[in-house]
């Protein structure tokens, strides 16, 4: 599959770009936090302005954002590993089904976690309780359920494959 090698390259590019962005964020956030200069944090398509708020509030917001981004990073890493596994020609294996299950759970956690994190951050920054349903929640829950379903389908296929191999 030629498209598989393209996908592998694209996922590798995406993964390493994320790694660079994540590392830059980890280095710059504490510096900006201490210097109290203007800084915005980009969080799954949203921007959160943390300029001029109390340090403890910024720390809580950054921990929440960092936690969600870490889960996102972890799920992309699992996708990368799965694609590498597929590229070796191993299609229906328990490893792949297990990976899809983990990715699905992580995506659902990101969807729900990001919505809760936005609520907490709004509470911290604007002192008001607000709940908003946006595309992040839907996109990640859809992707999560899709991967969970795929894990079931791949588990079934791996069983069928084993049965086939055992048949004389």
């Amino acid at each position, binding site marked *: *599959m030629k498209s598989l090698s393209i996908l592998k390259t694209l996922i590798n590019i995406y993964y390493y770009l994320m790694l660079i962005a994540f590392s830059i964020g980890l280095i710059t956030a504490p510096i900006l936090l201490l210097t109290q200069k203007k800084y915005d944090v*980009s969080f*799954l*398509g949203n921007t959160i302005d943390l300029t001029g708020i109390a340090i403890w509030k910024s720390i809580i917001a950054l921990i929440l954002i960092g936690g969600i981004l870490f889960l996102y990073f972890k799920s992309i890493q699992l996708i990368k590993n799965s694609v590498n596994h*597929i590229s070796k020609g191993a299609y229906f294996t328990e490893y792949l089904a297990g990976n899809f299950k983990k990715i699905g759970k992580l995506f659902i956690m990101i969807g729900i976690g990001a919505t809760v994190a936005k609520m907490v951050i709004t509470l911290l920054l604007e002192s008001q309780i607000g709940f908003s349903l946006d595309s992040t929640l839907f996109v990640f829950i859809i992707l999560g359920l899709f991967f969970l379903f795929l894990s*079931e*389908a791949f588990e079934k296929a791996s069983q*069928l494959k084993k049965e086939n191999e055992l048949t004389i």
Partner: protein
Amino acid sequence: MVKIKILLGIITLLIVVYILHFLSYFFLADYFAEISKSTESKIVFGKYNLVIGLIQSIVIFFGLIISFKCMYEIIKRGFFTKTSKKLMYVAGIIFLFSGLVALSLDSIRLFNSANQGTLIGILFMDFLLALIGFIILIISEMSCIGFEIKSENDLTI
């Protein structure tokens, strides 16, 4: 199968939301035109943003319709069938295409905008959409192999 049924429910909900979104364009056309006019000088692509947004919504709407059909087919006949493979392939193409278009448009916006922090985050999401489209394409190819395994298994006494 419970997960795919929940997924079908969410996709149905999104299709309804998109229909309401299109109806709002139809009934509140003047209001949207006014907003577009007042912001066109401040944002990249100016007055074309409204049309670009509408076209992107239509493409995603078609992707959702195909996904709905695909999931309905999977619930009815199982995952490893030729029809679900074809539908998954089309859905993959649509999501890949819309992800790539969004990625290109947002890249242009990134180079012409002051709010680059937000746009970088959006670019990562666009890239993810394109990647998911690509993954669906690969999985549709893999389901073909699954279909062969299942057919062999069904033939075995």
